[in-house]
């Protein structure tokens, strides 16, 4: 798995840079995802906890349009994936007319038959959704599903680290000392309360500290959980 995640990071970073900052990163992810998942297009929508849409990027106009549709119509796989905090895998939108009476026909008309929506999240911190589209109906293979999930992991890490590329971010979190994985999440919760900030911000701060101190993320997390390290709000 570590090997495959590295390959995926490499594919993202091999994409030409078309823009800077967050948009640039998301764009590269969208373009990299397409051939790996045999997709016709991909889109990423960043969202706040209450479902408000922020930055949204897509690999092509058709994907952008179908992504926009969901927000305009207020229904669709992307919104469900975000709300229910789990992937929504639609092998054929033609079968979903009851589930999404507005979205299903509009997506089909827009040239899309299969939609796979993956939330970009770590537990309670939700950043947005990755949508993968296909012109033809049909499921993802097991390998493609694994790759899609790894793409979301890599993207979430890169976004949290405010990176423009996937490869320069931390790599030890994807395989954080397996036996201490729970402590990493516990540390996130602790820091959230210590600093009085949202969970995603707590994650950013934990990672930034690990990077600045050149420490393994999981070891830092253990210190936080054990009370050896505390995050203190900066004086105003």
């Amino acid at each position, binding site marked *: 798995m570590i090997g495959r995640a590295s390959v995926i990071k490499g594919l993202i970073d091999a994409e030409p840079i078309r823009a800077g900052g967050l948009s640039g990163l998301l764009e590269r992810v969208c373009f990299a995802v397409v051939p790996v998942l045999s997709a016709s297009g991909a889109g990423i929508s960043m969202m706040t906890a209450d479902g408000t849409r922020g930055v949204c990027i897509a690999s092509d106009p058709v994907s952008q349009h179908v992504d926009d549709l969901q927000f305009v119509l207020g229904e669709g796989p992307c919104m469900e994936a975000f709300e229910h905090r789990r992937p929504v*895998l639609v092998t054929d939108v033609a079968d979903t007319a009851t589930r999404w009476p507005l979205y299903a026909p509009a997506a089909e008309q827009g040239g899309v038959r299969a939609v796979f929506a993956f939330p970009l999240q770590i537990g309670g911190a939700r950043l947005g959704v990755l949508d993968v589209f296909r012109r033809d109906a049909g499921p993802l293979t097991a390998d493609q599903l694994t790759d899609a*999930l790894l793409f979301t992991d890599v993207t979430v890490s890169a976004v949290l680290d405010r990176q423009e590329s996937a490869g320069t971010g931390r790599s030890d979190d994807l395989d954080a000392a397996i036996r201490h*994985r729970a402590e990493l999440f*516990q540390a996130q919760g*602790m820091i959230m309360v210590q600093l009085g900030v949202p969970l995603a911000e707590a994650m950013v701060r934990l990672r930034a500290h690990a990077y600045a101190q050149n420490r393994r993320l999981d070891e830092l997390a253990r210190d936080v959980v054990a009370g050896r390290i505390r995050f203190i709000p900066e004086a105003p």
Partner: protein
Amino acid sequence: MTTVSVERLAKIFVEIADTLVDEFDLIDFLHTLTDRAASLINASAVGLLLADERGRLEFMAASTENAKLVELFQLQAREGPCMEAFGTGEAVINVDLAGATSRWPNFAAHALEAGFRSVHAFPLRLRAQRIGALNVFGENTGGDFERGDIAIVQALADVAAIGLLQERTIHRSEMLTEQLQGALNSRIVIEQAKGAVAQARGVGVEEAFALIRDFARAHNRRLTDVSHAIVANPDNAIRLR
């Protein structure tokens, strides 16, 4: 471990069936199941792992929240009896840990250090698909499981697999993936909530879990929902009463 009492087993199945209702909370259910399984067969610890579809097994629930023991479950993400049971679909029974150091170098060493002598793992199966494994630690070496008991623990594992679905039938394998990924994410939320409450109340994470679980039960809310509420706002952990 002793031969399982049929009456106790029947009680457990009734209890489990009772929990499979509208207000069903997956993690709480798995917690109850592993806890009952442990007392039923007099095991030191029982844990449940789910395959995350990225190629490894993730810890979901156990009869204990003790961090050291949870580590032993987490260690099996890529090596150990659970990985074998998950991979082959066959139960791994009565393995003497002292003799398993080349079979599972990393896992066996840590399990022995923790004081365990034997380990067993049962695949979690849903029709043709394997979705994870149930892990049992015993303190005595070998000969722990009688034939009849093996079938019973496998039945408990199968019940766990059924409980993992909130739909009666899985029409598509996609639905199973969606459920499993949702369940795995829920476990992460619970860990984050444990940390938040531990910090807010000045207690250890184990006690934090008990506080969250007790709060959920007292207010007739799902464990997962309460955990989501806690991590949604840094003030909520402090307000948990």
